[in-house]
C-alpha cells in the first residue's frame, strides 16, 4: 500500500491564449465582423509536457522561479483549470489550499464563516458543529465569534482560516505558499502542522520558494523552469539546482556545457582530482589551472553522502589559507586532509574554485570524485567520529 500512486500526471501541457485584439464584448463581435484587422493570437505555454507521480504518504515539493508554472500546475491538480493536453488522475479526497479562508464573507459573523469555509473544505454542517469548539479555541477567538468578519484584524482572519484548514480531513493536500504570510508565531504553527501531516502519513504537494522548508519536510521535490520539469528527486539536489537557476548566465558561458553538474565562468579549472582514504584521514588532492589572470582566489570543498545530503565542507577562507594570484597558464596543487569521521558508505566530493573574493564561481564540479568508507560499523548516521563510552560508576540498589 505504501507505494500506491495517488497523484499521476501524464504529459500535461497548458496553454493560455493571449489575445492581442480585445474581443471581450458583444460590441467587439460586431465590430470585428466588419474590420479586416488580422486576428492575431499568441499562445502562452504555461506548462509543457509535465509528467510525474506522487506516492501515497509522500511529501512532494514543487519549486521554481516566479512565473515558471508552479501555481498553474497546482490549479490543474486541484481541477480548477483543465489541462490543454495530457491527463491527471488522483485517488482519494483532495483539498487544495491555493489560499487560506476561501469563501470567507466579510459581511457575515465569524461563526457563519466557519460553516461557510467548512462547506468549501468539504465538511457537512454536522461535522463542522462537532469540531466548532475546537476550531474556535485553536484560533483563540472565543469572544469574537459573533463579530462580523470585516471587523476582524487580518491576523484574526488568518488565524481563523488556518484553524479551519488544519482540520481539513483529506487524503491529498495541495499547499501553495501559505507560509509566505504571517508572523513568526504563525509560521511556527504552520511547521507544527506540517510535522503532524508527516506523522499522519498524508500525501502533500507543496509549492514553495522556501528551500529550507522544502529540504526539511519534503521527501522528494520537483523543479520547474520555463514551463518544463528540470529535475525530480532528492530535495538537497533540487534546492541546489534552484539556486543555480539564478546564476544562469554564468552557466551558459561554460564551454563544456554538457554536464549540468559542472558550471562556472571557466577562468579557473579543476584539472585533476584524486582521493585516498586511510583510517585517520581522507586526503583529496586537486590541481587547478588558470585560464586567465585571476586574483583573490578561493577554493572550497564539500562532501556529500550518497543520498546527496551535505556532510561537511570548508573553503580556504575558513581555513585562513591565502591562495596566490595566478597568471594565465599557472597551475597550483592543493590537498585537503579531512579527518575520517564518516560512517560506512559512499561519499561524493564537490570541489569548487572562485575568484573575486568568492563572488565569481570559476568552476564548481559536483561529484567530481567519490570515495568509499569501510569501517564495518554500519551506523545509521552520516558521521561516525570516535565517540567514547565509559562506565563511570556502578552499584547495586540499596
Amino acid at each position, binding site marked *: 500500500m505504501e507505494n500506491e500512486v495517488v497523484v499521476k500526471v501524464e504529459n500535461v501541457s497548458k496553454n*493560455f491564449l493571449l489575445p492581442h485584439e480585445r474581443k*471581450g*464584448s*458583444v*460590441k*467587439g*463581435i460586431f465590430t470585428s465582423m466588419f474590420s479586416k484587422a488580422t486576428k492575431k493570437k499568441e499562445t502562452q505555454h504555461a506548462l509543457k509536457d509535465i509528467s510525474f507521480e506522487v506516492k501515497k504518504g509522500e511529501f512532494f515539493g514543487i519549486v521554481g522561479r516566479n512565473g515558471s508554472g508552479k501555481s498553474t500546475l497546482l*490549479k490543474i491538480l*486541484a*481541477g*480548477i*483549470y*483543465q489541462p490543454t493536453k495530457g491527463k491527471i488522475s488522483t485517488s482519494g479526497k483532495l483539498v*487544495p489550499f*491555493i*489560499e487560506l479562508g*476561501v*469563501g470567507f464573507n466579510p459581511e457575515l459573523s465569524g461563526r457563519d464563516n466557519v460553516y461557510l469555509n467548512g462547506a*468549501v473544505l468539504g465538511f457537512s454542517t454536522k461535522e463542522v458543529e462537532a469540531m466548532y469548539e475546537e476550531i474556535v479555541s485553536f484560533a483563540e477567538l472565543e469572544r469574537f465569534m459573533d463579530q462580523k468578519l470585516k471587523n476582524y484584524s487580518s491576523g484574526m482572519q488568518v488565524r481563523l482560516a488556518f484553524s479551519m484548514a488544519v482540520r481539513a480531513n483529506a487524503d491529498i493536500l495541495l499547499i501553495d505558499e501559505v507560509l509566505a504570510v504571517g508572523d513568526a508565531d504563525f509560521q511556527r504553527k504552520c511547521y507544527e502542522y506540517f510535522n503532524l501531516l508527516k506523522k499522519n502519513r498524508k500525501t502533500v504537494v507543496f509549492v514553495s520558494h522556501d528551500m529550507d522548508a522544502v529540504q526539511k519536510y519534503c521527501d522528494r521535490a520537483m523543479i520547474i523552469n520555463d514551463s518544463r520539469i528540470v529535475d525530480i528527486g532528492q530535495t538537497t539536489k533540487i534546492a541546489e539546482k534552484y539556486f543555480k537557476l539564478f546564476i544562469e548566465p554564468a552557466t551558459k558561458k561554460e564551454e563544456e556545457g554538457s554536464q549540468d553538474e559542472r558550471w562556472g565562468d571557466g577562468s579557473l579549472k579543476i584539472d585533476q582530482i584524486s582521493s585516498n582514504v586511510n583510517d585517520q584521514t581522507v586526503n583529496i588532492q586537486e590541481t587547478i589551472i588558470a585560464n586567465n589572470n585571476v586574483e583573490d582566489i578561493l577554493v572550497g570543498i564539500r562532501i556529500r553522502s550518497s543520498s546527496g545530503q551535505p556532510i561537511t565542507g570548508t573553503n580556504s577562507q575558513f581555513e585562513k589559507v591565502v591562495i596566490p594570484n595566478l597568471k594565465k597558464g599557472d597551475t597550483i596543487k592543493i590537498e585537503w586532509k579531512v579527518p575520517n569521521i564518516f560512517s560506512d558508505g559512499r561519499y561524493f566530493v564537490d570541489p569548487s574554485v572562485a575568484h573575486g573574493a568568492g563572488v565569481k564561481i570559476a568552476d564548481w564540479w559536483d561529484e567530481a570524485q567519490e570515495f568509499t568508507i569501510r569501517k564495518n560499523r554500519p551506523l545509521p548516521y552520516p558521521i561516525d567520529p570516535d565517540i567514547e563510552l565509559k562506565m563511570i560508576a556502578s552499584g547495586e540498589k540499596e
Partner: protein
Amino acid sequence: MGSVGAIVGKGDLIRKINFPKYIIIFAVLVGAMINLSLTAVVVVIFMIIGHVSVSWQALLLIPLLLELILIALTAAFFLSASFVRYRDMSYVWEVIIQAAFYATPILYPLTRIPHVYAKILILNPFAQVVQDSRYVLITHSTQTISTVYNGDRWIWAIPIGLTLILAIVTSTYFRRRSHSFAEEV
C-alpha cells in the same frame, strides 16, 4: 435578475476551488424563489380583500411555476456564462428585459391588442405563463393561449417546447463553457 453577474461575482471562489459551477446558478434561483414567496404573500392578501374565490384549479399554479423556473434557469445559464466572456452583456440584457416586459401582457390586458399580434405575442412563454396563472388563480375570463387560437389545446406545445429546447441548449452551453470559467473570470 441577478444571474447575469452570478459567475463573475463569484470569481474569487472559482479561481481557488473546484466545484460544480451550476450550484451558483441554483443559489441565485433559490434567492429569487424566496423573493417570490414573499411577494406571493402580498398577492394572497389582495386576493382576500378582493374576495377572489380560489378553486382547486389553483393547484395548477405549481406546474406553471415550474415552467417559470425553467425559463429563468435558461436565461440564467446563458447570461451568466456569456457574461464571463462578454462583459457588456449586462447592458444588452437590460434592453432585452425591457422589451420582454412590454411583450408580456402584465400592464395591459391581452384583449386590448389586435388579435393578429396577440397570436404572436402569446407564443412567448412568459406571456403564456402569466395568462395561464391568471386563468387558474383569478378568473376564467382570462384569455389563455388556447382561447387566442380558438380552443386549440395543442398550441400549448409551442411555448412549452420552446422553453424545453432553450433550456437544453443553454445548459449545454453553460456546461461547455464552465471549464474555462476559472481562467476567464
